[in-house]
């Protein structure tokens, strides 16, 4: 039996693991799709304090994991398939394997949202991609379209511009939502072009992405432009489906949280799932820390009884 099982190994899960393990809690991290979570897919991270030169997402992920391991956190490289939070011990299944813990930290984060348009699934990995870290280098001297207008989209456009000959950022609103720091940087990059109030209706190509069909939302005019790649950065869906029935959530799967707490005693939430406003690496680490501290306090009260 574990003191705490942490579901997810992004910045929040790994920070929670480091805090919990350092406090001598028997800690297991069920990694999920990959160590680092979203930051494993980010080429460059320039806003994590203490790293003035910046570093890559995978490198920061590895550092977080090493830090948790140093204090004895255990890791399971698999995805939780089912849970039962009816009573303590709380149960987590990974396939056939049953794991039990006195407390749980949910840090399963979010997954890339898709556009849901023709060509998107068929050409995924064939020019449609979500991971600039993985594939930006392969677009050297090629044209890429980035869909989205938030921090991630603009950061990805900047990363891609290091390699691509031309990057077109397509955003459905009439202005970017990204922070000023990124917007200014993107605006000063001559390779990046901006198309506002525009959506992608179709991704066209036989074996590879060749074109996208665009529609201007103000004029309804459609156009087709040539491109070698389409990077999707339009937002995220919460990874919460396995908690249905055990944790309160809205129709989209967003959990009901009170800080890092849930209505379930001993079950805490960290990272993007409890943060609708900031969603930064450093704020995720913060909530991971808070969730671990709450779990520790709660476990102590259980001991007294």
């Amino acid at each position: 039996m574990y003191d705490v099982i942490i579901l997810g190994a992004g910045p929040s899960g790994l920070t929670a693991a480091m805090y919990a393990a350092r406090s001598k809690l028997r800690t297991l991290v069920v990694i999920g799709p990959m160590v680092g979570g979203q930051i494993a897919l980010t080429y460059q991270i320039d806003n994590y304090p203490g790293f003035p030169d910046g570093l890559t997402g995978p490198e920061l992920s590895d550092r977080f994991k090493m830090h948790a391991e140093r204090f004895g956190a255990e890791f399971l490289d698999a995805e939780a398939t089912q849970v039962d939070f009816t009573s303590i011990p709380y149960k987590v299944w990974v396939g056939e394997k049953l794991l039990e813990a006195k407390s749980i930290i949910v840090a399963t984060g979010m997954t890339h949202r898709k556009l849901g348009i023709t060509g998107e699934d068929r050409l995924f990995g064939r020019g449609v991609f979500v991971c600039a870290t993985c594939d930006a280098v392969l677009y050297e001297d090629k044209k890429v379209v980035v869909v989205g207008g938030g921090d991630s989209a603009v950061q990805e456009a900047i990363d891609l511009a290091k390699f691509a000959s031309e990057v077109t950022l397509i955003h459905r609103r009439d202005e970017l939502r990204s922070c000023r720091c990124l917007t200014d940087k993107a605006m000063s990059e001559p390779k990046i072009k901006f198309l506002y109030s525009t959506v992608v209706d179709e991704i066209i190509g036989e074996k590879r992405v060749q074109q996208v069909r665009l529609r201007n939302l103000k004029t309804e005019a459609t156009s087709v432009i040539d491109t070698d790649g389409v990077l999707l950065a339009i937002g995220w869906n919460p990874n919460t489906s396995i908690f249905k029935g055990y944790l309160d959530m809205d129709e989209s799967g967003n959990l009901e949280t009170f800080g890092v707490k849930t209505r379930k005693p001993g079950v805490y939430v960290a990272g993007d799932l409890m943060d609708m406003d900031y969603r930064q690496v450093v704020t995720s680490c913060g909530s991971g820390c808070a969730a671990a501290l709450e779990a520790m306090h709660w476990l102590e009260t259980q001991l007294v009884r």
Partner: protein
Amino acid sequence: MSGENLQFGDWDNRVVKPEKPVIVEFWHESCPTCKKIESTVQELPQKLGDRATLLRFNVMESREARRFAIDKGVIGTPTFKVYCKGIEKGEIVGLETITNLLGTIENIIKDCA
């Protein structure tokens, strides 16, 4: 034991000249999906046995390596391309289970003779 590393200078000798089909995995170290599929890739040579050879090509090794991969039509990592005497017969892109990866490769190399 996973596939051996391939340098682009060895392409003719190790991909074009051999009679046996060659599978080239295009990958790099900071690609999380490549990391994720590593255990599957390690199983592959044994499963393929004598039927085909697996070689691994690091697209980030140098600028030349990157250009070479782009010229070979690689636009995502990992990409597994199947060659018969240097001619590309098919590819598998992204994360796959060993069963799917092996099944697709076997289907492609059937036409190699």
